[in-house]
């Protein structure tokens, strides 16, 4: 299927895959580690409390920064590869 797609369509689906991957990590660190899975992580001690607390107050923010820069870097490479950049 992907062989028949135009380069523009390939670029767009590559972008969508990248976004999906990043958003899975985004949801995992914030809604997952910091909220829903916190009881599961309760055994892992971290600075006087548990790892879930760290994710809620610092870990998720650091992950978000990493995600955005990773996405920007990957997209710049895609822009060049498909010659769709400015």
């Amino acid at each position, binding site marked *: 299927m992907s062989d028949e797609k135009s380069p523009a369509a390939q670029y*767009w689906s590559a972008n969508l895959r990248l976004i999906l991957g990043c958003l899975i990590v985004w949801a995992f660190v914030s809604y997952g580690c910091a909220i829903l899975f916190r009881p599961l992580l309760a055994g892992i001690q971290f600075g006087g*409390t548990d790892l879930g607390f760290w994710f809620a107050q610092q870990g998720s923010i650091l992950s978000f920064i990493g995600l955005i820069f990773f996405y920007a870097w990957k997209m710049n490479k895609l822009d060049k590869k498909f010659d769709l950049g400015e």
Partner: protein
Amino acid sequence: MSQFAINLIFVGGSFALYIGIAIWARASSTKEFYVAGGGINPVTNGMATAADWMSAASFISMAGLISAGGYANSTFLMGWTGGYVLLAMLLAPYLRKFGKFTVPDFIGDRFYSSKARLVAVVCLIVASVTYVIGQMTGAGVAFSRFLEVSSTAGIWIAAVIVFFYAVFGGMKGITYTQVAQYVVLIIAYTIPAIFISLQLTGNPIPMFGLFSEHTDSGMPLLAKLDEVVRELGFRDYTADVSNKLNMVLFTLSLMIGTAGLPHVIIRFFTVPKVADARWSAGWALVFIALLYLTAPAVASMARLNLLTTVFPDGAEAPALAYDERPQWIRSWEETGLVNFDDKNNDGRIQFYNAVPSFEDTAESRGWAGNELTVNNDILVLANPEIANLPGWVIGLIAAGGIAAALSTAAGLLLAISSAISHDLIKKTLKPDISEKGEMLAARISMGGAILLATYLGLNPPGFAAQTVALAFGIAAASIFPAIMMGIFSTRMNDKGAIAGMLAGLLSTLLYIFTYLGWFFIPDTNMLANTADNWLFGISPLSFGAVGAMINFGVAFIVSNATDAPPKEIQELVESVRYPKGAGAASHLSH
């Protein structure tokens, strides 16, 4: 020199700086007024976005809420940063490629409908005005304490200052002013935090101090804090919450709302290239994180400081005598934001959580009820005083708090005024208006918006951060889904988008007004705002995420039941997806 004089020097000096920059960078054309001529580099833009973004809610109110709520209020930290991920991936680059000035511009053109544009204008104004109320509340708190005036006078002073640089500067003035404001506010936030972290843990970096050892007790700081709050009948600071659904939805509302707030989206029109829009979102988050990683440390350390001030020798020993109370309690008492009521007439301050489960313990200690109430919004501002820091630090934090409130208020007012002058007047009512007339209309609507916000700031529906959270719910339910579907679906048509926006906005407003009163007027609420009354335990602050899902759902159904959009619109959507060929942002090129 008196503390009042020091505050005046810091606040006055920072004002002079902002106004000076606004005059120096005075906008001369509508394009400069709205988007700074499209020539701002991504790091500068990121810093300005951070100042624009970090409002009185972030600076003044958030640490206070975390301090009071502990882990449960981590939602604010995640919610107000996680939205940038959505912004960087789902909106910013495509809107930059689209290259227009305003959010209603995009919605009006993408959905080829002036009705859609109008609905977007309404959503934008409702969300922005709610947000400005929170800023005015925050600015009022800061002014009332530091300039020793009433909070009413404080709000009016803020209104005048905002009017000056927003009205005369426009976006370009705002961009550079906001860079200056970012520098002022981050220094003001960080310096007291460093001192306090050093005092309590010996670690100069607050974000690491939070997870280090408490020097006096040798216990980890958070374990010590848990112990202290437990002895006074409060929930453990790090305790988990039982209502996870509400916590998830609240965080989600704040995230989607962040990505849907027009004054933040506008910022990404000001960078030169599409790639810059992506980088800019990342830089904005870096600058925001400098404050957001410090805030939880400030929250826990201030709570510990406050409780050990009142109970210097532990909960079992006699509490602080009222006559010996520190200066900061005396000064804040004058603003009415700290109150003492000696219920057991022993002349000492018993500060604890007066809940039924703790009643026996309290009675055995001879306590007759909690005697001290401390408004959450004062915590960050009082922090340097609680930690006995020198006078200039107090002056600095006053300047920082005011910078945070004013920078956001100015950004929002710009978004409101451009929606009225550009989207409503030029695009809908009077297309032949001259550029000069449009500028005048923008300035008049800014003035009008300031008056409305000032009035509402005098009668606010909650703490600064809570009022602001409502604005996010509204933006999440109305604006974000429409823009996202406009980019990611070629099938979405005008009717779907309009029905979706209206359904999202109205359902969210209905839910909020049911618990908080119609148009926030006290005592007009139909149900008491308590967890028992909430639908499925979802608080009015969290409903924005549900509103967004309603928006998506209604839009999808209506769109599929009606005709597909015309071919040229489908081509427009395609073109927005690829960065190639993006010119500077303009409203003249279509």
